[in-house]
């Protein structure tokens, strides 16, 4: 039975792993931290999996756990933060040297999103996942009105960072 459960979990996670990668990309700044957060999300998903009844889609169920892990459970180590600084520094130099290609704009976007708070990042993530405000408010545990207000503020903040 456990083997079956394990197999079912691994198969579904392998299929939907891009969701975790997207969360990791927003919340971490280097490969080590990305892998570390991916592992922590996987552990949390596996722990919760026996209670997963299949009422919600596996991918929807993953959003919550992945975001909750990134926002509340994940702890960064000091070593990783130091590496981030170097990575960010190199990136800034690169972005000044090249023309505004789409790829470059994407890099700038990610860099700007990383300057947002954990909560704002979650809202941007859910927006990019094309979730409606009802789903966003349920995932975040805030009212729909507050979700809209917070989302507009986060977008405004992004605009400011990108166009200082």
């Amino acid at each position: 039975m456990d083997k079956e459960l394990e197999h079912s979990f691994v198969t579904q996670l392998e299929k939907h792993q891009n969701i975790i990668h997207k969360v990791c990309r927003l919340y971490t700044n280097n490969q080590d931290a990305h892998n570390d957060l991916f592992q922590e999300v996987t552990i949390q998903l596996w722990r919760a999996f026996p209670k997963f009844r299949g009422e919600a889609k596996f991918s929807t169920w993953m959003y919550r756990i992945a975001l909750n892990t990134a926002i509340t459970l994940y702890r960064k180590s000091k070593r990783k933060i130091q590496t981030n600084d170097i990575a960010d520094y190199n990136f800034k130099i690169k972005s000044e040297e090249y023309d505004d290609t789409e790829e470059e704009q994407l890099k700038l976007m990610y860099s700007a999103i990383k300057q947002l708070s954990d909560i704002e990042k979650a809202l941007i993530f859910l927006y990019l996942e094309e979730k409606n405000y009802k789903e966003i408010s349920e995932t975040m545990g805030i009212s729909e009105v507050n979700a809209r207000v917070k989302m507009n503020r986060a977008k405004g903040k992004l605009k400011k960072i990108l166009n200082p």
Partner: protein
Amino acid sequence: MEELDILKKSWNKDIHPKISAESIYKMILKKSSSAVKWIFIISMIELALGLSSGILLLTTNSENELNLPSWLETIVTIAGILIPIIYSYKFFRNYQTINTTSSVKELLNNIIKTRKTVKQFVLVNLSLIAVMVIFTSYYTLTTPMGVNNEIAYPLITLKDYFILALVILIFTAIVIGACLFVYFLLYGILMRKLNKNHKELKQLDL
């Protein structure tokens, strides 16, 4: 927002090399290093320390080494047993509400509530120790002692009482202050991220 739309276009593309099923199998065997796990471990240590200090208090008291009046002895005995039991129960009940499938706000609320239970327990325990030290010192200093069949007070002058009381108070304050400093430093680091995110969500309701 135009820039976000650019990101939206490429959002669902595979952005990271696929992790194999074999690697996922290995990952689920690994242990979590989450903040909640550390909060649980530290809370368990605090509850165990509180419980053992309660037991120590009881055994010391039963040997009549504290010179306390019987009414205070009864209160200390009851408190020493009840406080750890009540807080352990509250802690486990709150801990069970921590669920990663909750909303972000609910999860943060539940973690902070669980943490608060142990925080209260530590503060109640430290207060109990402080009260015990003060009462024990008071009764030891003011209870007449039998020396060679004569009744004598352990200290003679008011100045002696004053100095001793001051020393005891300073000592108690230093010990409790040091405990609180380590405690808040430890939790300050562990809870910083949680508190920051909780505050941000809470501000929306204001």
